[in-house]
């Protein structure tokens, strides 16, 4: 029955719509014949959220009308995204529909239209939440992989989620690019919201906050702006380093900050560096960031990267063997974001070629990303990068000077050379002005020890590693 009604709709829509619209939106849908037994009903599966919304807004009414014409009575019409294997639907329609039949699918963002006139949107609920809080529902503590790199930050975040406003205020989370800061802070917001849906939570990126300030200027609506930000129970503000020299925005934030902390409302801040290092930020703000707790997220080590890949594969419902996960994790080291990009690439590649994900397939797929990857880091490049970072001369890398401001960067560079290149210690010593290999050994031990005690240095080393690994 389902196939009959859907074939009927397809043939009618094909004649009514421009071919490209038909091909792009209507043919992307599959009729779920496994589900309903009810008469006069049709359940359609869209490959993703975008197609679902697009079809819902533009074609659903018409499909409902066609159903009514076919059955001679109003038809129950449902549009959903399959919970698993969603993306498989388009790569190979035949395989996808077979899969849909076998696997009982759970609706993600379902839309049920009993008759075309009374559209009931269940998927609307998460849209409303998003509209209110700007939180991405996918970012939760459950989907966050924990390891040594983010253990402390996660523990602090859980604390804040349990006792917002009273445990650590503000919570300041910093770390390099693409390590999951946004995920972590949104997880706090989502946890609090789930516990108390009446809590007024707002996630805002600094650039959007800045845009709000500009808009308040243009519309002379500073009162409303202030009232809004001071009415929040929780303010999550992302990438505070973008405040750089935006003075009026900083001033507004300063007042909002004071009002919120006084009222024991939670503030959560992320940044790409340690508070004292933020460029162009007023001192009075920086000192306030010290009131609460400052925690760092570090780049994940190999095992954690493998665990992250496994988790993401689970979400995509694909099988990822250890050797493939290991291959990807070994090649993409510096951030989680590109790790995810690489996994998506492997999955898409396997799907397009109709193969399962093997080591061989992964190697082929990653060529597009890794082609230029495995360039060998040269010691000159390391020296230059470190010298630039500490604003000293490259010549100082080779010089005999032993003042702290020069010697320390030189030791950092030696440590990086040992960590990032396959060169021998004597060769490294040679490259640093003909020093003995024991000097290099001493430098490496010094840096390794200092990193545990001096978190400024630790941060520098992380940033440099990230830059050098690209």
């Amino acid at each position: 029955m389902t196939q009959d009604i859907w074939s009927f709709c397809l043939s009618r829509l094909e004649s009514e719509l421009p071919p490209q619209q038909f091909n792009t939106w209507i043919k992307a849908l599959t009729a779920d014949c496994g589900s309903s037994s009810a008469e006069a009903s049709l359940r359609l599966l869209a490959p993703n959220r975008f197609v679902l919304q697009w079809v819902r807004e533009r074609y659903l009414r018409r499909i409902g009308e066609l159903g009514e014409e076919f059955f001679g009575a109003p038809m129950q019409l449902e549009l959903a995204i399959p919970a698993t294997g969603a993306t498989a639907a388009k790569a190979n329609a035949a395989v996808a529909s077979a899969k849909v039949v076998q696997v009982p699918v759970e609706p993600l963002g379902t839309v049920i239209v009993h008759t075309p006139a009374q559209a009931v949107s269940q998927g609307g609920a998460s849209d409303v939440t998003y509209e209110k809080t700007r939180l991405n529902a996918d970012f939760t503590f459950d989907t966050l992989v924990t390891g040594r790199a983010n253990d402390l930050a996660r523990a602090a975040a859980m604390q804040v989620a349990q006792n917002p406003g009273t445990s650590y205020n503000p919570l300041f989370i910093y770390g390099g690019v693409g390590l999951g800061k946004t995920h972590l802070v949104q997880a706090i917001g989502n946890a609090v919201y789930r516990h108390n849906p009446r809590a007024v939570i707002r996630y805002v990126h600094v650039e959007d906050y800045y845009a709000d300030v500009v808009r308040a200027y243009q519309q002379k609506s500073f009162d409303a702006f202030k009232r809004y930000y001071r009415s929040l129970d929780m303010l999550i503000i992302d990438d505070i380093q973008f405040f750089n020299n935006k003075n009026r925005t900083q001033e507004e934030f300063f007042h909002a900050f004071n009002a919120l902390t006084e009222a024991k409302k939670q503030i959560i801040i992320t940044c790409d560096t340690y508070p004292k290092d933020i460029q162009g930020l007023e001192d009075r703000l920086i000192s306030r960031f010290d009131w609460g707790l400052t925690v760092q997220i570090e780049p994940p080590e190999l095992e954690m990267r493998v665990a992250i890949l496994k988790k993401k594969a689970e979400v995509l419902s694909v099988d990822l063997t250890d050797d493939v996960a290991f291959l990807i994790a070994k090649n993409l080291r510096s951030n989680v974001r590109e790790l995810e990009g690489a996994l998506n690439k492997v999955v898409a590649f396997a799907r397009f070629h109709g193969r399962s994900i093997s080591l061989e397939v992964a190697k082929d797929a990653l060529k597009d990303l890794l082609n230029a990857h495995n360039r060998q880091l040269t010691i000159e490049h390391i020296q230059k990068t470190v010298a630039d970072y500490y604003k000293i001369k490259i010549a100082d890398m080779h010089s005999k000077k032993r003042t702290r401001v020069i010697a320390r960067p030189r030791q950092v560079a030696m440590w990086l050379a040992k960590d990032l290149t396959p060169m021998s210690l004597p060769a490294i010593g040679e490259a640093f002005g003909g020093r003995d290999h024991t000097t290099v050994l001493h430098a490496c031990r010094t840096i390794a020890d200092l990193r545990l005690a001096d978190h400024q240095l630790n941060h520098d080393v992380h940033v440099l590693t990230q830059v050098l690994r690209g």
Partner: protein
Amino acid sequence: MMEQLVLDIHLDAPPDFSNFVIGENGALIEALNLAVQGEGHIYLWGEAASGRSHLLHAAVALSQSAGRPACYLESEAIGDSLPDTSALLIALDDVHRLPAAAQIALFNAFNRARALNQTLLLTGDRAPRELDLREDARTRIGQCLVFEVKPLDDASRAAILAMLAERRGLRLADEVIAFILRHGRRDLPSLASLIDALDHASLERKRPITLPLLRTLMQTGLAL
């Protein structure tokens, strides 16, 4: 002999998928089709003249004909913001040339894409890792589905030559195509301008394009 004067009329088909010679880029074309359906952001990279801009234009055309708003933008021309139209497909060419302010614009576009239901199609001349951009923007590019636009082999180039010629009503013998590919520059813009020159010469002289004509033309200064 009087030469025929030629009207300065060009006909050029707008770039779309039907006039892109796919070669080894099948998966990429498929992914672009899915991107129009909102499947995810895509980053294409490849050497100059590999067809990146052509593909972007093609995706924009496809999107528009499917009813989804789409725009093509040059990296050097976007200033400090990208359009915030809902459901827009933004094709941004040559991100390796993004000026500093525009890099923040791209960063913001990535952050807002989910809320605005936008899809980003980006191109550049190198792999994401090699891009000399802000780290926060660069890693977001690395999170896209990444494809290298594979350069064409000679068989594909021959097919393109034949197609370009046919569009102008010219028929090139196989030996002529082989000759051009042996002696000339083989990137696409060069091939396209060569066809233009041949078309012009053939009209002027009222002769079909043959190997002898090609040789004569070269002697009179046509650069292959």
